[in-house]
């Protein structure tokens, strides 16, 4: 290790350049994982906010977050009279783009029954949820609107009363919570291109889904079978909604990102192997010398492998530091949990070991007698 450190110090420029290059590659690998985890968290945010409710969606469809779904708003009224149902609420979702103070903002508007009892579990960062049937909105804090600010959506004046935390739609857009009546008005006048789920009036227009909460003691399976008899809908449990989301678009993204990460790790391994090998080849004379002086095999292996290890660890540390600074500025949410960092470290250590194999073989093959020839 002493030899490795002394040599790296003597070639500090090369060491720093290699570490920087590797660190940027590791940063991208970490970002890919964080973006995937962020997608999962975003995709499940609204489903999880609905708790254990049953989801009634358009027949044969997977629900409002996986694909377009239209259910007649009267389904909610029909569901309410099914034995075992405590409440049923139509859920409206509208993707919406608007200009505000010279900025173009995209938001996913989600309706809830704020004037009485909201059905989704919203998490507040500051301020409060809308408490009136009209004129108030709570937005995810990442949207960049301040609490107290006035905005206008399709001529509907709204005042931002609170910041939501972790309210991101599966599209990656920030979520804004509005009353059913406000969303209905916004939706009615929204340009055709902005309508994810066409609807007209809260009482008569189609909704994206109907959320059904069960009465205490009700048998979920039995209630679900009863609900399934309503024509034109498919009923899902919350767990099924989660699975449909994760197995659908999110799973494709996971596989794509996973392949990309594997490619980057292979590139990192090749780069590190090349650098370690060329550093070893450049010190053939010194290796022959220490072999002649009686260096054990483990000393040589440690010399070469610990250089690879030191570069990898330094690069990984730099990548984590870069990520901490850069990831919050990414347009999509990047979620990195401590477990991800430990797994990443483990992968980096394996990478360091694999990439030093060729260099170690080279070092061990140098004949000690070469020191005499020199």
């Amino acid at each position: 290790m002493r030899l490795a450190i002394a040599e790296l110090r003597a070639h500090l420029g090369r060491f720093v350049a290699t570490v920087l290059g590797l660190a940027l590659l590791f940063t991208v690998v970490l970002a890919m994982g964080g973006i995937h985890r962020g997608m999962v968290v975003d995709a499940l945010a609204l489903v999880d906010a609905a708790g254990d409710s049953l989801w009634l969606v358009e027949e044969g469809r997977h629900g409002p977050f996986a694909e377009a779904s239209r259910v007649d708003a009267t389904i909610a009224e029909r569901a309410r009279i099914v034995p075992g149902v405590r409440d049923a609420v139509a859920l409206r979702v509208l993707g919406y783009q608007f200009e505000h103070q010279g900025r173009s903002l995209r938001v996913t508007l989600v309706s809830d029954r704020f004037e009485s009892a909201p059905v989704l579990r919203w998490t507040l960062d500051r301020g409060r949820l809308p408490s009136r049937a009209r004129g108030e909105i709570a937005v995810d804090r990442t949207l960049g609107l301040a609490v107290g600010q006035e905005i206008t959506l399709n001529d509907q004046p709204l005042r931002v009363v609170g910041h939501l935390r972790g309210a991101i739609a599966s599209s990656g857009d920030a979520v804004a919570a509005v009353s059913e009546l406000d969303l209905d008005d916004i939706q009615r006048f929204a340009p055709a291109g902005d309508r994810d789920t066409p609807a007209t009036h809260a009482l008569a227009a189609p909704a994206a889904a109907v959320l059904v909460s069960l009465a205490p003691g009700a048998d979920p399976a039995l209630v679900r079978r009863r609900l399934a008899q309503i024509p034109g809908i498919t009923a899902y449990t919350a767990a099924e909604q989660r699975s449909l989301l994760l197995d659908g678009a999110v799973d494709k993204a996971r596989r794509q990102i996973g392949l990309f990460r594997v490619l980057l790790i292979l590139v990192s391994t090749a780069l590190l192997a090349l650098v370690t090998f060329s550093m070893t080849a450049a010190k053939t004379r010194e290796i022959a010398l220490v072999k002649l002086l009686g260096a054990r095999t483990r000393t040589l292996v440690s010399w070469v492998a610990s250089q690879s290890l030191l570069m990898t660890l330094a690069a990984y540390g730099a990548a984590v530091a870069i990520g901490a600074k850069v990831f919050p500025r990414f347009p999509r949410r990047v979620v990195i949990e401590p477990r991800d960092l430990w797994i990443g470290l483990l992968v980096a250590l394996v990478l360091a070991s694999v990439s030093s194999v060729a260099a170690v073989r080279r070092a061990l093959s140098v004949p000690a007698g070469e020191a005499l020839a020199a």
Partner: protein
Amino acid sequence: MTRLQAIDLEKTYGSGALAVRALDHVSLSVDAGEVVGLLGPSGSGKSTLLSCLGLLDAAQHGEVLLDGAPIAKDGRFVSDPTEVRRRRIGFVFQRANLVPFLDVRENVLLPLRLEGLPSRAAREHADALLKRLDLWDRRSHSTSALSGGQRQRVALARALVTRPALVLADEPTAALDAARGREAILALKDIARDEGAGVLVVTHDTRILDAFDRLLVMEDGRLSAADPKDHAAPAH
């Protein structure tokens, strides 16, 4: 006390008509504190002998003993050659062969570090060698900042730092001028005598022959005693 003893070494490269006998029944001994010079033309077998004595190669026949114990016999190593080189043999080369990214003191300590963490006594011995070889003021310097003579003195200190039984030197003065070459070989002789190491020096440098206790000459793989007067440099 006999430090090194080689008995009837034979080494042949190739076979049949192309066979080259590099060592032909070579026997020699080096006593503690003795500095023996080994002369001979290129291709006479000096390097092969040095390799066999330094356990880089094994003679096909014959025996090598260090402090009376066999270390190689009839084509195989009796002791672990790496361990013997690390603990009991010091090497000095034509060029100093220092490690460029270690400073002077670390170069001297290198053989001790290959063994593990050097003891306090070992480090003190290294420092004593640096002082004795007039390198103490340069101990923290990069080896690239040293003159040729200083570099070779660092190499001497490195060869002696483990208190070896035997020092093998291959043309240690070839890259030095006459004064520096003499200075280096006398320093080696002084310290080897004090420490009781046997020293075998392969050399072509006829300017330093008077520094050796004994001279040997090798020709066509055969070793014989030599008279310094027969090999002395012509007077100018």
